[in-house]
């Protein structure tokens, strides 16, 4: 049984704004019957680019319906530029969070909105024009690259949870991995070591280095690492998953985690494990 929040449950059982807006001037459609979920969002944009009305029709699970309902509540009354800034995280947050396997429901909401706005403006969402990588769910390379970049995805599982891409037959896993590496490669180059850092900058850099350089490797072996605290030059971390019980975890900490942080943050860092 999914651990849905009370708000997800409430929006699922009493969805707001079901149907089709009369005189709609923007329509966004995502998903399909064979994929297992789909959303048709209709909006009516009035004066000053204000979204006067928004309604949805959704085929899908409880969290897909709740995400659609939440989306319509969020966008009504907003102007288009502000509405365009709504992310899938915002939708999930509105609902008090979603199980990680259901993030794709909030992504579907965001995509539907984006397409409705593009439709109103007479544009086409460029991500939908990419090359299809995941044939089971019809997800393109541009869509995957964007999610990896914007949502900071580092593993295939995360891509599956966000976009469903790779969640069917699994044939495209190598391609998805290549796209993750492509985006990550681009980002690694951007890491510039500041000469002098404030404590805040240092912590941020340690955090992003853990996310980009260390977590993916550990997660491949079903492990994980969490940053607990940074005090002066000491970085306190907690090992999770298989790392927590691995006899070689101390070697990993020193040879991999500490070495990487010293290379990319500052030379004097010492990594210590918190149990």
């Amino acid at each position: 049984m999914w651990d849905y929040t009370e708000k997800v449950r409430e929006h699922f059982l009493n969805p707001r704004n079901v149907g089709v807006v009369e005189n709609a001037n923007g329509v966004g459609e995502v998903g399909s019957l064979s994929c297992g979920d789909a959303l048709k969002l209709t909006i009516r944009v009035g004066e000053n680019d204000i979204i006067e009305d928004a309604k949805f029709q959704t085929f899908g699970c409880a969290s897909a319906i709740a995400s659609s309902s939440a989306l319509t509540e969020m966008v009504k009354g907003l102007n288009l530029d502000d509405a365009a800034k709504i992310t899938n995280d915002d939708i999930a947050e509105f609902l008090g969070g979603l199980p990680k396997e259901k993030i794709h429901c909030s992504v579907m909401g965001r995509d539907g909105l984006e397409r409705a706005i593009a439709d109103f403006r007479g544009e086409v969402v460029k991500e939908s024009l990419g090359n299809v990588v995941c044939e089971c769910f019809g997800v393109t390379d541009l869509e995957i690259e964007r999610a990896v970049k914007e949502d900071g995805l580092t593993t295939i599982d995360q891509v599956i949870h966000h976009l469903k891409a790779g969640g069917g037959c699994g044939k495209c896993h190598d391609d998805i991995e290549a796209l993750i590496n492509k985006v990550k490669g681009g980002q690694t180059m951007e890491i510039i070591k500041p000469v002098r850092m404030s404590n805040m900058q240092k912590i941020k850099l340690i955090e992003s280095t853990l996310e980009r350089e260390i977590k993916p490797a550990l997660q491949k072996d079903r492990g994980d690492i969490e940053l607990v605290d940074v005090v002066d030059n000491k970085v306190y971390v907690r090992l999770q998953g298989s790392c927590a019980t691995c006899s070689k975890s101390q070697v990993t900490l020193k040879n991999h985690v500490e070495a990487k942080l010293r290379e990319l943050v500052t030379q004097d860092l010492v990594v210590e494990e918190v149990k």
Partner: protein
Amino acid sequence: MRTIYLDNNATTRVADEVLEEMIPALRDVYGNPSSMHHKGAEAGAPLALARERVASLLGAQPEEILFTSCGTESDSTAINAALVANPDKKHIITTMVEHPAVKNYCEDLEKKGYRVTYVPVDRQGRLDLNALYASLSEDTAIVSVMWANNESGVIFPVEEIAKKVKAAGAVFHTDAVQAVGKIDINLADSAIDMLSLSGHKLHAPKGVGALYIRKGTRFAPFLMGGHQEKGRRAGTENHSSIIALGRACTLAAEKMEEENTRVKALRDRLEKGLLETIPNSFVNGNETDRLPNTCSISFEYVEGEAILLMMNEFGICASSGSACTSGSLEPSHVLRAMGVPFTAAHGTIRFSLSIDNTDEDIDTVLSSLPGIIHTLRQMSPFWAEAMAAKAE
């Protein structure tokens, strides 16, 4: 709110009669059957009785029954035993609709160099017997075919298949987890070499199962260690649960007729009522050879998890072959193998009844589900499209 439990293929309630025999086994008869004192001896006798009771339900001999921890362990043990006993044979035949206990084990064996044939089923869920027989060869070590499918309830002609498999010189195993206790089984007259069953599917607790091994079948243990089960399955016996399984088997024999008359009638009424009141719905699985308690029904243009959660508001417990409930993204492999159309595969619900169910349970489903499907369809973009297309 009253619970209407219609998910008995997932697991069953431990029957009162079963629990009654189980409690003293936990509280008083706590000795280890292997021990050389009176507490040990005291524990040994009910174990022997349980073995007789399980054997009796299957038409087998007590020494042909091996107690295990679950259906999955029984399946793994059977397949492993056949492969170890026939080291030169590298071919396995099974079906496309097996439970993951067999399916995933076979997929793993493929990675280890075995060749596996997955026999397809037709739209009614019936096995392609010609394809099965055509794939038999001298290299075939074991054929494993479930007795009845857990999702569709379709019963496979395993006794007929077993004869052909034996003639071809291979071992025949059946995962009968869903069949035992629901339909009559008599292994004395059959050519079946090994059969798996699970306690919690027939009103015994979780954590106990059994494997029938026909006398004379070459065997190799899966768990190594102590001498329990005559060296065929190491590990201290799950004593109280085995006793419970024994009682559950005699209970199943007592209730077999009721299962196939009263329970079947409830299932039929449920099925007929839903088909009559909900348009664009259909039953999966062929009508004649089906478990008396199982109903797999598809509703077009709606999604299964949403149906389940709305039914849950009425206290109704069922399950779905849809993707969203399991965390996977595709409909179940069984529905896909049966070629259930994509308009309905995501909206498939399985009701599985037991002797605990009443007419009132069925009334509740029949009065609430049509409204649930209607509500979800009003929300579905595809329902509006389909209705518009129909009107044209």
